[in-house]
């Protein structure tokens, strides 16, 4: 190795050691100032318990349990080569389900890619999610996006992309537009701890503060952006405190406590609807699985850490809560999970046997109308594959 390269390596090592010890991964997750209503044993603080109908509580539980099972089965499909990729949300189900459940049905959601729960709680079917994973002809995206880029026009869940944080200014723009049109709709956007390092986090937060946009920023701080812990994203003590700089309030909540997420979102939504502007919610949670089906988390975190977080599982906690409230019992819980699994397995089969979009579809939706150059490419493709070709 040339001398200068050796020096550079040394300098980098010194720098990394000097700046931050990556082993202090969860250092930031001091649970100070964190709202918790439901503890890890299912005990809850009666005085803080949000007023949620029994019917909605049961739907929330079903949505959360569905996300978990859906992931388990989809990861299996990925391992078998039946879908190309999967991005999990296990451990984070309370964040998307709890927050979306607190909104009105016509409020707008700008997801990242760990929020199938937001769609499910709005009534999207498991089958439709599988259409997305398989990219078949029933997929809203027409097979154009990698798995886990879920959206639904009908459910007011906006199309996500893979670049991080780009959806944040969109949510702000949508919220400003709704205000401009004198509508009471608000927008909520999901993003992770890593996204707070991106320029568009700043852009979106700053515009929202300046224009007092009716928007909720829901940061799922799961401790890692792929391999890098939150301490490598920011030297701030919390992510919530970033709201101060943009002139908006924030709340830190236990992201594995569905009641806390629900009640914080409800408060933020009320503020937004009253014209009091945006709120940042930092939900402290943990990704139990890998970043994606291509990730090996043992390279950057210890199993003991994962085990600690398994004890805080949001679904177990909600199950315990519902049992205390006598909304479910062991038997009905078992039946529910079985029912969910059956639905998932039959939906996967259905989606897998749905034909792929025809070759012509590749050239559609680039613009409203085909341009001459797309027409030329379309003709060439049809000549090669034949009209209506779906891959079979």
């Amino acid at each position: 190795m040339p001398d200068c390269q050796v020096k550079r390596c040394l300098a980098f090592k010194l720098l990394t050691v000097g700046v931050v010890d990556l082993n202090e991964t969860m250092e930031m997750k001091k649970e100070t100032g964190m709202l918790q209503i439901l503890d890890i044993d299912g005990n809850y603080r009666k005085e803080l318990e949000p007023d949620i109908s029994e019917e909605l509580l049961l739907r929330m539980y079903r949505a959360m349990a569905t996300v978990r099972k859906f992931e388990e089965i989809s990861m299996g499909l990925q391992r078998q080569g039946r879908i190309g990729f999967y991005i999990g949300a296990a451990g984070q189900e309370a964040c998307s389900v709890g927050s979306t459940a607190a909104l009105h049905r016509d409020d707008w959601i700008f997801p990242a890619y760990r929020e199938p729960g937001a769609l499910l709680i709005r009534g999207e079917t498991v089958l439709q999610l599988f259409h997305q994973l398989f990219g078949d002809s029933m997929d809203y995206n027409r097979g154009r996006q990698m798995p886990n880029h879920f959206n639904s026009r009908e459910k007011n869940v906006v199309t996500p992309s893979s670049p991080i944080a780009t959806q944040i200014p969109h949510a702000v723009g949508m919220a400003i537009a709704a205000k401009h049109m004198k509508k009471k709709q608000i927008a909520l956007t999901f993003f992770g701890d890593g996204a707070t390092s991106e320029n568009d986090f700043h852009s979106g937060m700053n515009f929202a503060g300046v224009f007092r946009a009716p928007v909720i920023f829901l940061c799922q701080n799961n401790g890692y952006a792929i391999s890098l812990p939150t301490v490598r994203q920011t030297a701030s003590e919390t992510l919530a405190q970033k709201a101060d700089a943009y002139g908006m309030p924030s709340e830190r909540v236990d992201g594995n406590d569905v009641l806390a997420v629900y009640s914080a979102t409800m408060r933020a939504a009320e503020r937004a609807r009253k014209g009091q502007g945006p709120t940042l919610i930092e939900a402290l949670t943990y990704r139990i699985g890998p970043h994606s089906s291509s990730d090996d988390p043992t390279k950057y975190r210890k199993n003991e850490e994962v085990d600690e977080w398994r004890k805080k599982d949001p679904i177990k906690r909600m199950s315990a809560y519902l049992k205390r409230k006598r909304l479910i019992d062991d038997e009905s819980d078992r039946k529910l999970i079985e029912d969910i699994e059956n639905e998932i397995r039959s939906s996967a089969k259905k989606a897998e046997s749905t034909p792929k979009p025809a070759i012509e579809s590749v050239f559609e939706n680039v613009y409203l109308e085909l341009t001459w150059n797309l027409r030329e490419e379309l003709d060439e493709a049809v000549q090669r594959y034949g009209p209506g070709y779906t891959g079979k």
Partner: protein
Amino acid sequence: MTVRTLLQSVTDAMKTEMENDERVVVLGEDVGRDGGVFRATEGLLDRFGVERVMDTPLNESGIIGVATGMALYGLRPIAEIQFMDFIYPAFDQIVSELSKIRYRSGGTYTAPVVVRTPFGGGIKGGLYHSQSSEAYFAHTAGLKVVAPSTPYDAKGLLISSIRDEDPVIFLEPKRLYRTVREEVPDGAYTVPIGKAKIAREGKDVSLISYGAMVRTCLEAAEAAAKNGISVEVIDLRTLSPLDIETIISSVQKTGRAVIANEAPKFGSFAAEVAALIAEKAIDSLGAPVLRVSGLDTPVTYIWESAYIPDVQRVLSYINRSVSY
């Protein structure tokens, strides 16, 4: 009809569409109180109020990202980027988001935003107030790229862009803002996107250009005529989707093509036009396709005159083509 500069036509187009359609809003840096650094939005704030003419924070990525969100809701935002040289912080929002929303959502979501931005040199703006980076955007599927060169076309094309269902990058030739004027109809009219114009008919060589360079080309054609060379000047008006038919039928007639633009030559939009002519009309060509372009350097402050092709340089390329 009113005699208007290109700049006044741009303003008039926005005012006309804002009166016609309450979904049309304007946002950007200094577009409200100041009326824009070039005064393109002058008078709009007083006429339409702060909700429809939004002075934003100094953040291009935010301007385009927020405009995209507004368009997703159903508004028709016109976002101003003060100079094309400052569009790069918004590049991700334009290239990864705005241009791809229709495609990636299978057509269930659309974001018809117009991004207006002054481009090109001629105002002694140096590296950062002179750039012509249209090639990046013409290269991106899902964007339309429009570049008028006359007041009439500027108004008609801007109205078409605002009404278009797809995002449009609307490039305004800043050195023509106040230097060209002509009679422009009052009220709404459109000039179609995707249609070039024969700015001057000729038979010896096709001189293909857009934006401010069209004026230089017309002057060069006039000078060439004195030497007995008949130059056909094509004003592309839209770069994407390109009016290939007008280009090819002109080249088939003249047998020669020179493309004039002021962006750096290497990998430029002119290269795309040259390649298309080679692919589709090589049998008609009596000379190599030539490009007279800006230099493969950043734009320089003191030697701007050497950077931007002038009449003499364009003429020399015309002569090279016809004497081949």
